[in-house]
Structures are given as structure tokens and as C-alpha cells.
């Protein structure tokens, strides 16, 4: 247990196929205890499948590893007691009230005082006065909050959150993340999948997976540095510029960002040669900058598509 005290999730070579289609391929990862680990990648990249393997909802075709020190293949029942899993789709009972849902969860985990635990959680979630409201009648943001409350109720050691903030407004999203940081500060390990770049940047570590392959992992800065991507930000008269630049040698990616355009490539020399004709133009302003996380991911996604599809 000495090593696993530091590491919450340690898996190697996870592979899972559905109907002959490999959804997760040879995936290995380590998550430190008390850290917030962001899981990023396009839709259908295997994020949900990986999370389900970690909490014992799916058995991998091959691979091994531990979750909280327990074997993911043999000790699924023990893992379930210490893991809170928040599904992508709201999965509390819509026709039970806030309080009834929480009490149900508390009883399933065998908490000594289920009513008391539910009452405390309602207070903590700021749902006082709404405890008798049906869960199905809550707004999207409150539903997410309640779902988070339900999975933290039994004091888990690991939280698995599958796109917890999809479709939630920015204010609720920020509150949600403050809550996650508070929980992690209390020693909880959090694995969270997301599509939002600002959320990725709030994680201690991130992993990017596409088409079942883990393509990059580390801290945000490490992932950006490892991408070896050079980005120019162009502002000014952009009419048609994106179309003209796309596909030129050295230009791997052209992405509009509001009134500016990000032009990126891994081969700096080729990139600069290709953009040279436009740099002369007076109505355009070119600025060499570090790529954003989004640039890195979109470039990774584009590259992995070529490799695997």
C-alpha cells in the first residue's frame, strides 16, 4: 500500500472493444492521489469507456491495474464502495425528491445516519428549502450539483466525473469547479472528462485521448511544450485568409478565434516560409505566440484522425 498511497489510479494496457470496434487501445495512465486529472478528447474517443472500466462497470478485454490499491479486475465490489461515479446523463431518480435521492444513496452505502447525511449534504449544496422538490424539476445546473452531492455523499476517495458540466451555464460551471477544487484540497482524487479548455486548464494534470489512444499527458504546460507547435496570431483584414493559408506546406492548422486567426505548424521554418507573402501586407498584424491548449488539441485530433481512421 506504500506506493498506492501516492497513486490513486494505476492502469496498464487497457483495451476494450465493442462489436469488433476497438474503443480503448492499450491505454496506460497514472493518477496521483489528491490531484484533479482532466480527461480530454473528441466525442467517441473512449473517455466514458475508460471511466466505466475504472469503476468496474465494464471489464476490459485485456490490461490490468489498480484503482485505490484494489485490482480493477477482481475487486470491483471494493472499488465501488470508495468511488463516486457521476454519469454523463443525469442518473438520479427524476421522480424522487432531492432528499429522497440523497437518502437512497446514503442507505446503499450503509451510512450510519442516512437522514442526517442527506440533510447535511442538502445544506452544503445550498439546496435548503428545495429538499422536497423532485429531482427531475431542477434546472440543469442544480441537477449537476445534486448529482455531485450524491456521489460525494459516501465520502469516496476517488471521484469519476463524466462530462459533469455539459450544458451548464458559466456561473454554475465555475461554482462546480470551485467545489471540485475544494474537494481535491481535502484529499479527494478527481478524474474528470470535459470538452471545455478552460476546465482543462483548471486540472493539475491532463490526458488527451483520441480514437482510444492516449496521445498526450502531463500538466497543461508540459502538454503545450511537448506539442512543439508554433502559432502565429493574425489580426486585421482576414477576409478569405483562412482558406488561402489552409493546406500550404508547414501549416498544420488554421483556426479562427473571433477577430483573429491562429496559424500553427510543427515545422517552424516551413510555416514561416509559407506565411511570408502575407506578412508583407500592411493590413495584417502577425504575432508569434505560444499555442493555446485548444490549438494543441485540435492539431492532435487532426493528426490522430490521419493515423487511426
Amino acid at each position, binding site marked *: 500500500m506504500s506506493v498506492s498511497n501516492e497513486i490513486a489510479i494505476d492502469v496498464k494496457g487497457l483495451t476494450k472493444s465493442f462489436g469488433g470496434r476497438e474503443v480503448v487501445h492499450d491505454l496506460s495512465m497514472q493518477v496521483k492521489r489528491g490531484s484533479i486529472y482532466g480527461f480530454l478528447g473528441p466525442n467517441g474517443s473512449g473517455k466514458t469507456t475508460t471511466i466505466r472500466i475504472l469503476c468496474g462497470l*465494464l471489464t476490459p478485454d485485456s490490461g490490468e491495474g489498480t484503482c485505490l490499491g484494489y485490482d480493477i479486475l477482481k475487486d470491483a465490489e471494493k472499488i465501488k464502495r470508495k468511488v463516486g461515479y457521476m454519469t454523463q446523463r443525469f442518473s*438520479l431518480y427524476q421522480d424522487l425528491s432531492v432528499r429522497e435521492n440523497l437518502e437512497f444513496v446514503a442507505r*446503499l452505502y450503509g451510512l450510519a445516519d442516512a437522514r442526517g447525511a442527506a440533510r447535511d449534504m442538502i445544506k452544503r449544496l445550498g439546496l435548503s428549502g428545495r429538499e422536497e422538490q423532485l429531482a427531475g424539476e431542477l434546472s440543469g445546473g442544480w441537477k449537476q450539483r445534486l448529482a455531485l452531492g450524491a456521489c460525494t455523499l459516501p465520502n469516496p476517495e476517488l471521484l469519476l466525473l463524466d462530462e459533469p458540466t455539459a450544458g451548464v451555464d458559466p456561473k454554475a460551471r465555475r461554482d462546480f469547479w470551485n467545489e471540485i477544487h475544494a474537494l481535491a484540497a481535502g484529499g479527494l482524487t478527481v478524474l474528470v472528462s470535459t470538452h471545455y479548455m478552460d476546465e482543462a486548464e483548471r486540472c493539475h494534470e491532463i490526458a488527451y485521448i483520441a480514437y482510444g489512444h492516449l496521445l498526450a499527458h502531463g500538466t497543461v504546460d508540459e502538454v503545450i511544450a511537448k506539442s512543439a507547435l508554433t502559432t502565429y496570431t493574425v489580426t486585421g483584414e482576414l477576409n478569405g485568409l483562412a482558406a488561402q493559408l489552409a493546406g500550404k506546406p508547414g501549416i498544420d492548422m488554421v483556426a479562427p478565434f473571433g477577430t483573429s486567426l491562429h496559424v500553427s505548424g510543427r515545422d517552424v521554418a516551413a510555416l514561416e516560409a509559407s506565411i511570408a507573402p502575407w506578412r508583407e501586407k500592411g493590413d495584417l498584424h502577425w504575432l508569434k505566440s505560444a499555442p493555446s491548449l485548444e490549438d494543441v488539441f485540435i492539431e492532435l485530433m487532426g493528426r490522430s484522425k490521419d493515423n487511426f481512421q
Partner: protein
Amino acid sequence: MSSIRTTGPVREIRDRFGFWRRSYAMMAKEFIQLRRDRVSFAMIVAIPVMQLLLFGYAINTTPHHLPSAVLLQEDSDLARSVLKALENTAYFRFVYEVHDVDEFDNLLKSGKVLFGVEIPRGFERAVRRGDKPALLVAADATDPVAASSALGALGMIVQTALAHDLYIGDPPAMPFEIRAHARYNPAAESRLNIVPGLVGTILTMTMLIFTALSVTREIERGTMESLLSMPIKPVEVMIGKIVPYILVGFIQAFLIVNIGVFLFGVPVLGSLFLLAALSTLFIAANLAIGYTFSTIAQNQLQAIQMSFMFFLPSILLSGFMFPFAGMPAWAQYVGECLPLTHYIRIVRAIMLKGASMPNLRFDTLALAALMLVAMTIAVTRFRRTLD
């Protein structure tokens, strides 16, 4: 994003057929969905064909070869001829030969036989003396349909029996008489038969549906995923889903029995406590079967179809609508696998015959066995993972 819009807005003129166009779109969508749901598609063919063939061959309202017992207090040639004559009517099939009145009564009470023929001691001698002794034929008339045609045939028996034993004397003068005794329901009132049967039929219908939807509903609403990620075992899920409905079923049974007694005047001759206990067992067995369906079905529609496929044979092959003993052997075997068959025997026996536990041992054990089989299938079928 102009590349996505390839055609312009729908031209105004096409909207003249808007009603048909939209209805067609809806129809096409329904057909596609129906085709994708293989189970439903199979049911469309299976329900009419299978049920029609099954019941067309199984159901017989003028049953023959009904199980009968003989209480033989005298083993004479004449007695044997009478029994032979009874069998020759094709209505009776003697499966038990007993020498004790209690045994004879118990066979009728437990429903093992529908008829009992009593040949009294000194029968042959009395006939020879011209005493016109009586031959008792006791019928279980809880099901008037099953009993009536056989009882109607009794009149000819004396003649037939005599044809074999011409030496007895002058045929026109009846040498003995047959006294038919319709037990339990002497007035042949069909409601006495129907009401106890309805207790079981109504319970089957409601209980099956309650649990048949329970697991599929969790899957369709997405709550199953988080339920599976929590520390609860399949047996615990099953118990939690079945027990509340036992209470519901119990209330229903209570209502039906009370209406039967107070509105339709059906008696409860046996123990109310025994009726309640065995009803609970029956309710649990049906809930377990419904729950099993819900672990097999992929969606709620399939679960309902499965319940229906189970409910129809339950009504037709259990002895509720048509005499059980009149069905061919294969249909009786199917019937024995249905909880309703056993429960209907139990309710009729307790309410109309005043039967007690020793008479009902077989059907009670059968109910318990069916329940355990269903529960075992359900627990093994219940998927702990989403694989």
C-alpha cells in the same frame, strides 16, 4: 457554416401536400424503428401463429378421460363391469383405486381426481336380490363445465353394464341406480368457479406488469448506470423491487376475495389464514417471473410483450377458462409450469372445498419451485456490468 445548407428553403407550393408529407415522414420513421426492434418484429408473427395453434389444439370444452377414483368396497364381477362401462363412456379414466373413505374424499378435495365412484359392500348380492342398490358417483363440480357432460352420460351406464352381464335378469327393470352427487357446487353456479379463478387471473396480470418494467425502466431512464456503480448486489436489487409489490398484491387479493364473498356470495370454507399465506406465495412467484422478464427484455415494450405472451397461456391453459383435465397431455404439462394453474387449484380448493394444507401440498411446492426457478434466472441474468 454555409456549406451545411445545400438547398434553399422548401418551396411554398409543396406545402399543399404538407399534411401527407408529414404523415408519411412519421410513418416511415415508425416502420424503421419497428424493423430495428427484432423482438417486437418476431412477436408480430409469433403471437398470432403460436397462440392460435397452441390453443386451437389444447382447448376442449367437452373433456374426456377425466381422472377418477374408485372406492372399491367389493371386488365383484359386476363391480368390474360397471367400472368398465364407465370407462367406455370415454368420460372417465380411473387413476386411483382406494379402499378408505377418507382417502377417497382427500383425492377429490385436492383436485387429483374430478370424479369418485363408490361401489358399496354387498353390491352384487343386492343386485341379484333385486334390492336396487345405489351406486354413488361423486363429482367435483367446482368447474361445472368439466363435470356436466360426464354426469349427463351416467344415465346410459346401467344399460351398458347390463349388456355385458345378461344373466342378471330382466333389463327393463333397473337392477341398481346411480346416484350422482355434485360436490362443492351442487347448483352448478359458474360464478362459484369463476370468482376464485379471477383472484389468480387478476393477480397474474397486475403483478407481472409491475415488475416486468422495473429493470428495463431503470435502463431506459439511465439510472441503471449509477445504480450499478454503487455497492448493491443483484439479489438485493431483486428483493428491493419485489417486496413492495407483495404488499400491493396482497391488498388486491384482499379486495377481490371480499367482493367475491360479499357481492357474489362465494363461500370461504377453508382457512382464511392459509388462503392469505398461499396467495402471498403466488404473488411472489408472479413478481419473480415479471422481474425475470425485465432482466431479459431490452426495453419496456419488449417487457410488456413478454408479459402478454405469458399471460395468455396462463388464462387459457391454467384451468381458469377451460377444464384443465380436458386438455391433451402436452398442454397439461405446459399448464403445470404456470403458477396460475396451481394457484387456481389452491383457491378453489380452499374457498369451495374447505381444503387444508395436506390436500394442497403438491401445488404449494410447485408454486415455490416455480418462484425459485424464476428468481435464480433473474439473479443470474441480471448484469452487474454494462458489457
